[in-house]
């Protein structure tokens, strides 16, 4: 049997000359170029929006925001100033903020309590209950809109902030409970037994040991919720009329006055930037949270 001589594996390149380095860069350049181009391409709409928001009403009406690059000095901040004077938009932003805050906090509160019970308290029917909760993930929002719409009308919840919060919370719970329950289940039992033997009651155990340890999952849940609720159009459109969050408000403005870009552009851009800021600030929790419950 002839054995081919094994090739010595090439050692990692440590000592390369400048020429070799340039060569390597050039070989990778096409990939980098493509990636940069793709990135820029995706940024086009946002850039367009941003630039339009900086143009005066007349300039914006002329169309072609790309002409901005020809005369960069014609930008103005008056659109933003006017935006903050525009009651409709400011109200919508405030409503969105309230709904988002409520829809982030309430699911976390409820889901964390439920998740702890499902993970660590042994009660009859627990597994079936968990299965049921996870099964609810399959219910599409659209199916619930009309029944909830009539329900809200009956209970005067239509067009209210609490009404929106409750709906968002309800649909956030299955995923939240699922995520948190798996994460809590991964907490070493010893840590909780140690708290018990130290005399901690169940409530203290929950708030002082379980919750702090579940912070990565909770933070990422909060981010999911903020991103989803802030940008939501459908639910706001159906379950609100005069007190609409920002997305449906801008959408209706677009329908009515499609030409007032000087109002729509800054509002849209501003509204788009907020969740981006949230995401950027809490990004590390987000990444941690993506793995939440998957690695013990």
């Amino acid at each position, binding site marked *: 049997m002839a054995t081919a001589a094994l090739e010595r594996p090439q050692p990692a390149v440590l000592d390369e000359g400048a020429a070799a380095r340039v060569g390597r860069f050039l070989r990778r350049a096409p990939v980098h170029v493509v990636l940069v181009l793709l990135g820029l391409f995706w940024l086009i709409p946002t850039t367009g929006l941003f630039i339009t928001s900086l143009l005066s009403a007349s300039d914006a009406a002329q169309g072609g925001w790309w002409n901005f690059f020809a005369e960069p000095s014609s930008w103005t901040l008056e659109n933003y100033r006017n935006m903050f004077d525009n009651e409709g938009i400011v109200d919508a932003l405030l409503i969105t903020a309230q709904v988002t805050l409520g829809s982030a906090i309430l699911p976390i509160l409820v889901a964390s309590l439920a998740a702890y019970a499902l993970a660590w308290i042994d009660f009859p029917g627990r597994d079936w209950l968990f299965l049921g909760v996870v099964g609810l993930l399959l219910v599409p929002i659209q199916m619930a809109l009309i029944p909830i719409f009539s329900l809200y009308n009956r209970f005067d919840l239509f067009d209210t902030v609490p009404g929106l919060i409750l709906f968002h919370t309800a649909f956030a719970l299955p995923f939240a409970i699922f995520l948190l329950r798996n994460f809590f289940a991964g907490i*070493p039992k*010893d*840590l909780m*037994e*140690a*708290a*018990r*033997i*130290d*005399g*901690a*009651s169940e409530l*203290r155990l929950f708030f*002082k*040991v379980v919750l*702090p*340890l579940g*912070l990565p999952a909770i933070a990422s849940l909060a981010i999911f919720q903020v991103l989803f609720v802030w940008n939501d159009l459908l639910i706001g459109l159906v379950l609100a009329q005069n007190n609409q969050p920002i997305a449906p408000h801008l959408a209706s403005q677009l329908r009515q006055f499609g030409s007032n870009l000087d109002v729509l552009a800054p509002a849209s851009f501003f509204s788009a930037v907020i969740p981006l800021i949230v995401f950027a600030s809490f990004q590390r929790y987000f990444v941690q949270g993506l793995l939440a419950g998957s690695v013990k």
Partner: protein
Amino acid sequence: MPEIRVEGLVKEFGDQRALDDVSFSVEDGELFTLLGPSGCGKSTTLMSIAGFQTPEQGRIAVGEETFFDAARRLAVPAEQRNLGIVFQSYAVWPHMTVFDNLAFPLRVRKLKRDAIRTRVREVLELVEMAQYERRYPHQLSGGQQQRVALARALVYSPAVLLLDEPFSNLDAKLRERARAWVKELQHRLGLTTIFVTHDQDEALSMSDRVAVMSAGEVQQIGAPEDVYRRPANRFVAEFVGRVNLIEGVAAADGGVVVVDVTGSQHRLTVRGADGASGNVTVAVRPEAVTVLPAEDASANGTNTWEADVGTVAFLGDHYEYEVTIGSLALTVQSSRRVEGERVRVHIPPDACTVVG
């Protein structure tokens, strides 16, 4: 007045008996060890005392209080038992500083802030970790985390301290130091302690008394010397230290076991074999057997036999001989080096224990 009384614990997991009539008592201030291989039930016993497991039968009382009584359906929850426990994994809370870890049980007991600070610092001094007050567990070494776990168990002056294999995650050198240190601390504080381990060196060196367990049953309870020198049965003889097991038949005249060795019969004088009859097993520790040169005629007394040397190994502080007397193989430990292929071995009657 024993501090801890455990009576008749029975615990089943499905149809498997993890604890089978486990009973023992621990005196005030004593360091009592549960020793046994994995799965023998020692951790289950400890967890039952702590309140994390509920046996099917039995009774557990500490001091004046009964913590568990199956007959009366009484089971005091773990958080009300005021015991201290150090887990094998230390279970130090990663999201709190060392100070907060220790302060936790004190805050539960609603101590004032100043009182907490004083007490935490006091206990940190005790475990020599005072300068690590503000550190987080992930900034500490394994040994340091273990001391924090111990400090946390001690900070609220529990009635009893429970230790669940606390040294198994430490390296050998650290383990030795930790053993001595914990023993000294326990003795100084006079704290009644139950210690669980599978390491017999630990059990023998630290305990006031040892309970050897196997398959859910207590095999023997006694002081380390007793358990080592007079094992109650074959399991204890084999589990604690190394042992030679010699099969034979008890002779009619008491105190002698006749050992049948390929044709010839040797009479082994055994202390304490008076009541035995029929087939017996005698346990002899290797270090109790003495080795003498074959030519030494003066050595011709009781229990002195000629043997063939198989191998001799030098282990630094002693030699280990594998010898055979016909079909009987013995391991002998001696600090003497006796040359030759044939030697004499002497087994003192006192070193022989009938184990079954």
